[in-house]
């Protein structure tokens, strides 16, 4: 078995008295698409956020593409390692978080130019190419305020791709979208998966999981309860908690 792109070991995080992550272990192989599901408050978003230190984990180790950080106070040395990891890890937020004072193109160029010091003409060529890939060529000179939610999320994906990440973490990328705009974003994500991008996706989109995920992870109360191929998990869940979650999803449609 080849070296995993992501290896999370015994990750723990508390918010006050509440233990949000109770020792998570996670390996993601090169080119693998992992979908994380679970009821709200199960810790799935916190897991993603801890992986890039947007939340500082209390315990555990994170290794992404060969770069390892252990949990602990944010010293200068640790921050440098964290930044190194962040540079190689794309992150797509539920609420897009595009930079509103920049055009779509500038949003995509920002990371390469400011962080990676790529010369501007080169960064611009690459950004144009990526925006073309997510289908936004004719919108690239618009500011986010003039784009629809779906378009904004596609710009955000292009912005993550511009850093040539080893893995992209998606934190409920379609939850903030109007239903009719969900499709265009999932389509871009499908295409990425086909190209072999390593992805960890927190989502409630069962269709997407069934079609694209190599592996589905069920989380509940800060722990992984079950994992396996989408088909197995959805049609033949072993755990009671998985069954309960799936039946709720079924009754209400998409939460």
């Amino acid at each position, binding site marked *: 078995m080849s070296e995993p792109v992501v290896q999370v070991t015994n990750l723990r995080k508390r918010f006050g008295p509440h233990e949000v992550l109770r020792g998570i272990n996670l390996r993601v192989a090169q080119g693998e698409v992992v979908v994380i599901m679970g009821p709200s408050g199960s810790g799935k978003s916190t897991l993603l956020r801890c992986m890039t230190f947007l939340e500082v984990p209390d315990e555990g180790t994170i290794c992404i593409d060969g770069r390892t950080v252990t949990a602990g106070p944010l010293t200068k040395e640790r921050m440098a390692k964290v930044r190194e990891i962040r540079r190689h890890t794309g992150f797509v937020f539920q609420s897009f978080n595009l930079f509103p004072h920049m055009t779509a193109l500038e949003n995509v160029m920002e990371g390469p130019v400011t*962080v990676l010091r790529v010369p501007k003409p080169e960064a611009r060529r690459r950004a144009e190419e990526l925006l073309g890939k997510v289908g936004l060529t004719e919108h690239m000179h618009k500011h986010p305020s003039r784009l629809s939610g779906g378009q904004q999320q596609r710009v955000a994906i292009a912005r993550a791709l511009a850093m040539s990440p080893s893995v992209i973490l998606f934190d409920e990328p379609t939850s903030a979208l109007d239903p009719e705009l969900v499709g265009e974003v999932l389509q871009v994500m499908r295409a990425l998966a086909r190209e072999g991008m390593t992805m960890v996706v927190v989502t409630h989109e069962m269709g997407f999981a069934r079609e694209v995920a190599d592996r589905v992870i069920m989380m509940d109360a800060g722990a992984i309860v079950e994992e396996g191929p989408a088909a197995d998990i959805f049609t033949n869940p072993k755990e009671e908690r998985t069954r309960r979650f799936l039946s709720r999803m079924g009754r209400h449609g998409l939460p």
Partner: protein
Amino acid sequence: MELALQSLPALLQASLVTVGLAAASMAAGLVIGLLSALIRIARIPVLSHLMRAYVSIIRGTPLLVQIYLVYYGPPQFGWHLEPVPSAIVALSLNVGAYLSESFRGAIESVSKGQMEAAYTLGMTYWTAMRRIIVPQSLRTALPTVGNTYIGLLKDTSLVSVITVTELLRQSNVIIARTWKPLTIYMTAAVLYWFMSTMFSFVQERVERRVSRHV
């Protein structure tokens, strides 16, 4: 009317001093305000306490007292400052404290997600501030900054007490000669009004251009 016209050249010249004082103090005040806001938000040890004290002292004391202190204080230690530089120092320290509060508010009003997005690209705190947070907060702060400038324009009249011949002092000087306070003060008031209104006009246009995307 004739007197108003006669005294107009001198008053206009003094108006230039007023505008110049306001512009110079504003420029310095913007730098002071932004830096002190950043220092406070980043909670830099010692410095941020100093900045908090600075803002508290300036906002808690009258500008007139500050002007007197800047003018008469430093010479006690053998440091001499001419009236105009003293005026600019006092005014920029004053306006800097108020801008510091405006900027702090504006920076804090930028959503948390913006900082996170910058972090996920691998930016440091200060790079994120410079590239992402501050540019957005400047746009938010623009209306307040504009109003502060108009306030400052009028506050310059206070430095007449330390011998700076700006519009108000020039008016008093002309009144001493002509004994026509009503005419001269009216003329001065019109000039202050004109300057403020001109600036408001410019401010509105700039605001409309800049804040389209925030």
